[in-house]
């Protein structure tokens, strides 16, 4: 529940705060968002699996963002579209995590139904 409220607060804050991304950073920001999204999904999954570790989660969140943005910057400098690597990896991990979360939730639900039946 708390993550959802946090997300809502963040979105509303973003809408009302007058923050603009400088035009030169427009390529890095979406990649950073993808990295953040991946971390959050990973965190949710770990939470469901009861393996959540706050330090690992927080450090992973920030280092993912920094590495993703850094790779994109490096790619820009070298003339290689490195952000594709970040998009590919984070994208596939997102799908993976989401699939696992779905499975875990369904299994949990089934177990509860079974318990009730018994």
């Amino acid at each position: 529940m708390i993550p959802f409220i946090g997300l809502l607060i963040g979105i509303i804050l973003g809408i009302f705060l007058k923050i603009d991304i400088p035009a030169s950073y427009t390529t890095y920001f979406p990649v950073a968002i993808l990295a953040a999204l991946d971390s959050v999904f990973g965190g949710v999954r770990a939470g469901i699996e009861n393996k959540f570790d706050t330090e690992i989660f927080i450090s992973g969140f920030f280092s993912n963002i920094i590495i993703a943005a850094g790779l994109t910057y490096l790619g820009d400098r070298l003339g290689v579209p490195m952000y594709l690597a970040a998009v590919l990896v984070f994208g596939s991990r997102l799908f993976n995590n989401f699939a696992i979360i779905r499975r875990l939730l369904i299994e949990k639900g089934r177990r509860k139904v079974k318990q009730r039946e018994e």
Partner: protein
Amino acid sequence: MKRKYSQLSLGIVCVILGLMISIQFKSNSNNQNLLTNKKIMDISQQLDDLKTQKDNLEKKVQEYQKIVDDYEKAVTAGDNVAKQMKDELDRVRKLAGLTDVEGRGIQIEITPAVGKMGEGYPLDYCLIEIVNSLNSAGAEAISINDERYVSRTQIVTAGVAIKINDTKFDPTEKFVVKAIGNPSILEGAFKIPESIVEIMEQQGDEVKFKQMENVKILKYNKVPSYEYVKEGR
């Protein structure tokens, strides 16, 4: 307890994520027309194509103009009335700035100060002042970057460019003003204290005068058309 802690950290991170997402959404909807590299390349390619097209068409116009001149000559040959009419026509054309002219005069080269765009006295006003001074010093024909100054010439800032006779010029590049008239009088118009040239030099613009025996000034290369003006008599 541990569970609550983990939920809280997830929540805080989600705040950051939400913030990033909404900022990105906002800036994306602001920059709907943000140009991609490919678009820029396409547009500059188009610009080049159109420029060559324009040059070709201008060449054609010149050819046809020559043919028209030949016709006029052929018609007036041997006919006195027609010849007088042709002379009158030529005179009026010269007055209107519709012919290339040459004669003694001066050339003024203006190199705008580097990196001072938008500061001090704007370049379009400077150009207007210069033209005004030249006119008051008796200039008979004036052109700026080969755009003939005629009664309907505008000198305005349009976006980042300066528009003269509907042609756009980069205000960070060199401007060349040419004028036909008495060279020393024309140049003298700018030697008085607090003249526009003095102001420009204080701003860091470079202004160079050159008195020339033969200044060539091109014609006004548009067809003046009147929509509202009617004959007064």
